[in-house]
């Protein structure tokens, strides 16, 4: 059964305290892994797409990496404005279309 699991559920950091969020997956036919940021009352906002093990993508204080079983979102020296829920999703091939499965997210709170 396709499954996407994110950990931790919630993470509280002090400003400047670096950490990592985890997204582990058990799916067949992976076509891509996506990271999204979701602010309260808003829809998810696209951050990164990773396609193959070993790939890395960076954007400001965020860096996403991918292995064959999991992805990490590293946050370096976070600021309060990085507080949000971070969602990962996997895109898999099913019959003649692609399907997305989302994890439950990690709620990040960065204190000044």
């Amino acid at each position, binding site marked *: 059964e396709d499954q996407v699991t994110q950990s931790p559920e919630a993470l509280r950091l002090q400003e400047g305290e670096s950490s990592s969020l985890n997204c582990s997956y058990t799916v067949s036919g992976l076509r891509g892994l996506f990271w999204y940021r979701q602010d309260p009352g808003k*829809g998810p906002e696209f951050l990164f797409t990773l396609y193959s093990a070993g790939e890395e993508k960076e954007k400001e204080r965020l860096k996403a990496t991918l292995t064959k079983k999991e992805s990490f979102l590293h946050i370096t020296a976070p600021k309060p404005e990085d507080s949000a829920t971070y969602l990962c999703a996997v895109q898999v091939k*099913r019959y003649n279309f692609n399907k997305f499965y*989302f994890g439950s997210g990690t709620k990040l709170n960065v204190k000044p």
Partner: protein
Amino acid sequence: EAGVAQSPRYKIIEKRQSVAFWCNPISGHATLYWYQQILGQGPKLLIQFQNNGVVDDSQLPKDRFSAERLKGVDSTLKIQPAKLEDSAVYLCASSFGSGAGAGYTFGSGTRLTVV
């Protein structure tokens, strides 16, 4: 580029009533999705359209939920009759295609409360 538009933003109804949500995707996006996001959970796909045809509705509770996408542009999602467990945010998303790497653009969602 205008984003994905959804309305209404909020809706409160009593159980057993009906409700409809509207979505206008980004111009030119052929693929449209409706997701249900229950508080504290990730989005769950309800239905996926490619132009005006249904690609995947395997997780749509068809006894009470229905969706249509007329002329391959706007879409409406209806719930009739609503249950308490339908309380959630209903997100619409669109993408240019459904191939590998086609990331979504989400709307801000409609928050439904069933009392």
